[in-house]
């Protein structure tokens, strides 16, 4: 052990208290945290991937009922929610940029706006769910879905059990996504409080970056949920 090296390390640690002792420098610590976050995101991709796979296979198998179910979804509420999430992703990257620049109040502002946008998404989603309850499109004993109308107003019979499967997948997929949104809102509220207290500096803002990665992934899942559930069966 060279004394000079030990002294340098100690000086470094004193310089940035956020650097924990198992890492040799800030860059290594940051890369390790980022790698761990990405590994977690990969497990999330596989988790939602299983549901996407189930949806695609059942859509192939019960095409008619899935198209009929999809046509009952409110495309405008879905589109609005997509836009809300995209804007929230922009505020998240601007938050990371504000953190990097060490602008504390700007960072808190962007984090708060992100949480508000996340809550807006959940409220709109709530109105969609309310509509589903009113139309008896929620799987269970009150589920009722037997027919659809084609472009000429002609009745086409739909297998109720198959349509129920569509709405089951709809509620599981959007529900799991909504739970991720709720977790994201709680997470970002916590980050906003810590940012307000000055926990993050321009040399240490890894939680903001990794929280941002999570938020973007939840956004990407919605980017795929929206066309698969709302858009691709409009003319089927």
């Amino acid at each position: 052990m060279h004394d000079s090296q030990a002294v340098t390390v100690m000086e470094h640690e004193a310089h940035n208290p956020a650097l924990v002792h198992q890492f040799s420098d800030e860059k290594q610590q940051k890369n390790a945290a980022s790698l761990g976050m990405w590994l977690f995101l990969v497990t999330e991709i596989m988790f939602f991937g299983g549901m996407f796979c189930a949806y695609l296979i059942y859509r192939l198998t019960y095409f008619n009922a899935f198209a009929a179910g999809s046509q009952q979804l409110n495309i405008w509420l879905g589109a609005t929610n997509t836009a809300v999430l995209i804007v929230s992703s922009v505020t998240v990257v601007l938050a990371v940029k504000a953190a990097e620049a060490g602008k504390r109040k700007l960072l808190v502002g962007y984090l708060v706006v992100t949480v508000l946008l996340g809550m807006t998404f959940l409220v709109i989603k709530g109105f969609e769910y309310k509509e589903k309850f009113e139309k008896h499109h929620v799987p269970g004993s009150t589920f009722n879905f037997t027919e659809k109308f084609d472009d000429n107003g002609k009745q086409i019979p739909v297998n109720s059990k198959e349509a129920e499967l569509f709405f089951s997948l709809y509620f599981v997929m959007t529900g799991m996504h909504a739970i991720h949104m709720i977790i994201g809102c709680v997470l970002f509220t916590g980050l906003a409080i810590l940012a307000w207290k000055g926990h993050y500096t321009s040399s240490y803002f890894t939680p903001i970056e990794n929280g941002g990665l999570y938020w973007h992934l939840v956004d990407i899942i919605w980017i795929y949920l929206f066309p698969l559930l709302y858009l691709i069966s409009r003319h089927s």
Partner: protein
Amino acid sequence: MSEHEEHTTHSQGFYLAIGILLLILTATTVGAAFVNLGAFNPVVALLIATIKATLVVLFFMHVKGASEKLTGAVVASGFFFLMILLVLSLADYLTRSLP
């Protein structure tokens, strides 16, 4: 360790431009859903979704310009395993009706 590697973020205008591009793509995919393209409706919708997701991964999640190549490898492996799940499963179900 160049100065460039320290700052992976882009300018505020760049992020706003990507955000506006994502909103335009959303409007496009909603518009395309009202046009009857037959079998190409799902193709167009999923293609636009993939473009949007790629923009988010590369520029918002900073995979492009990441100093650590391992991050890129993890992202690519995640995509690879997702493709094994989806492509192999659908390769089975899509071809069952064939003779």
